[in-house]
């Protein structure tokens, strides 16, 4: 086959050019789509460069593009790489494809549809950093994703692309199975639960070796950067979550939350938009923040800009709450999940999250009084920042944002014992939690 094909410029810098549908529940499953073969990958994106011995040049590209991690924390990639490179030799490298966030499907999308971009980014990292161990970390239940990765690895091996040895490791899926310290802990001790890190993993991770853990979407963006075409201001993959399903699409920095919802609605008429705009969105994931639609619609999907307004893209989830649905009921169901999903290793999380869930159950069922509202504030203050990982912080962020976004509902629940909106179940079903 002729591999020396010039890629078409517009498509050569994007991961997706359409909206990808996934059912609402379970691991991501890109519906009626196929993985891009190695041949098509090379036709669209061209050859990647070899990065052995060229770390400074690749670091410069990461810095110039201001690429941040797409795992939820949005930490500058160049800074993380620099820490790993200066910490010592022969680092370990992990591609994090576990996608612990239940409503997110962007990582499943990129692994199932564009595996070669992820593997190109991983190879570029392994070559430039001279990695001694390269791992792809996946959820054991994500059978389609695992199949797509293995198929791509076999294609590349047959084409003799010269990739470093890569091992695929799977572990049972839970909310914290994609948490960075859980992965390092699992690959060191076999226990996939968060660990308290006196030093960051970049300095001392798997078996105390410098370790770079990078989300698979980040690696796909690095796969794009590791090519002759210049890329500035990288885009973001987001998952629009509706009762109709999950819709993964690519957002360019100037595009807004409203743009992404419109894109999803064009693919499938979303019930949350049927008679009126949505009431609110949950931005980020279960540990993200509720925003009223009026505040959310015009927000650009660019982390730097969002942070200036006190917001964050998180795991890229945009979950819709329609008018006439009780946001407190929805939040209560998520808070129960967060309590169930605690690793139960740290006191404030173990004891605090169930108490927060109880308080939200009271809020949702209109049994709330002023004393309980004070207890809610006190408990939020006692839980934040006091765990080994950021799971309790996410629960606190969610609860605090619900108190603000649904303040009118809280008032109605408290004073009149009933909701401004309909009674009944949460709009979007939340899975059961539990890590062990």
């Amino acid at each position: 086959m002729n591999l020396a094909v010039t890629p078409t410029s517009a498509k050569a810098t994007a991961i997706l050019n359409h909206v990808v549908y996934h059912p609402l529940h379970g691991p991501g499953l890109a519906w009626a789509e196929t993985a891009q073969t190695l041949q098509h990958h090379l036709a669209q994106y061209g050859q990647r460069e070899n990065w052995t011995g060229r770390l400074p040049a690749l670091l410069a590209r990461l810095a110039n593009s201001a690429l941040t991690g797409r795992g939820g924390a949005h930490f500058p990639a160049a800074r993380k790489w620099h820490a790993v490179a200066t910490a010592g030799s022969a680092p370990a490298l992990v591609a994090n494809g576990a996608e612990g966030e239940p409503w997110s499907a962007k990582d499943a999308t990129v692994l199932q549809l564009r595996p070669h971009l992820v593997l190109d980014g991983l190879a570029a990292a392994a070559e430039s950093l001279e990695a001694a161990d390269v791992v792809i970390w996946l959820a054991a239940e994500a059978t389609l994703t695992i199949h797509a990765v293995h198929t791509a690895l076999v294609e590349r091996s047959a084409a003799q692309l010269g990739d470093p040895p890569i091992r695929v490791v799977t572990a049972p899926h839970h909310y914290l199975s994609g948490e960075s310290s859980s992965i390092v802990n699992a690959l060191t001790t076999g226990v996939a639960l968060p660990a308290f890190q006196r030093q960051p993993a970049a300095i001392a991770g798997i078996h105390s070796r410098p370790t770079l853990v990078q989300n698979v979407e980040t690696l796909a963006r690095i796969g794009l950067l590791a090519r002759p075409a210049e890329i500035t201001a990288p885009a973001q993959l987001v998952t629009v979550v509706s009762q109709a399903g999950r819709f993964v699409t690519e957002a360019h920095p100037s595009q807004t939350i409203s743009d992404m919802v419109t894109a999803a609605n064009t693919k499938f008429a979303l019930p949350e938009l049927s008679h009126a705009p949505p009431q609110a969105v949950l931005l980020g994931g279960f540990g993200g923040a509720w925003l009223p639609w009026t505040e959310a619609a015009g927000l650009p999907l660019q982390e730097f800009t969002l942070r200036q307004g006190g917001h964050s893209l998180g795991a890229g989830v945009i979950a819709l709450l329609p008018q006439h649905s009780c946001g407190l009921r929805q939040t209560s169901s998520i808070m129960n999940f967060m309590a169930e999903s605690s690793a139960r290793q740290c006191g404030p999380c173990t004891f605090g999250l169930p108490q927060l869930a109880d308080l939200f159950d009271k809020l949702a069922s209109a049994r709330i009084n002023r004393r309980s509202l004070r207890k809610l504030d006190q408990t939020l203050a006692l839980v934040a920042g006091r765990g080994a990982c950021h799971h309790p912080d996410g629960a606190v962020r969610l609860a605090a944002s619900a108190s603000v976004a649904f303040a009118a509902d809280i008032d109605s629940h408290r004073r009149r014992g009933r909701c401004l909106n309909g009674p009944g179940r949460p709009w979007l079903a939340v899975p059961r939690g539990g890590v062990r």
Partner: protein
Amino acid sequence: MTDQSSTTPTTRARLRVDPIACDGIGMCAHTAPGLITLDRWGFPLLAGDSVENADGDDLRELTTAAAACPRRALFIERSR
């Protein structure tokens, strides 16, 4: 007036807890009530402020509090 640049560099010392190792036993608060209080579940709330220009007495106080923990969950973080 002493020349600052010729004296010993400032050391900042802070007491920190490993929340996974901590079992909420509470010996720390019992030993150093000025530094540590316990929350409603029995887990430590540290003063939070680091001690600037930590001298021998300051470090001794922090070390005693850390040594009290049967789980060795407390440690002193130093920085310049």
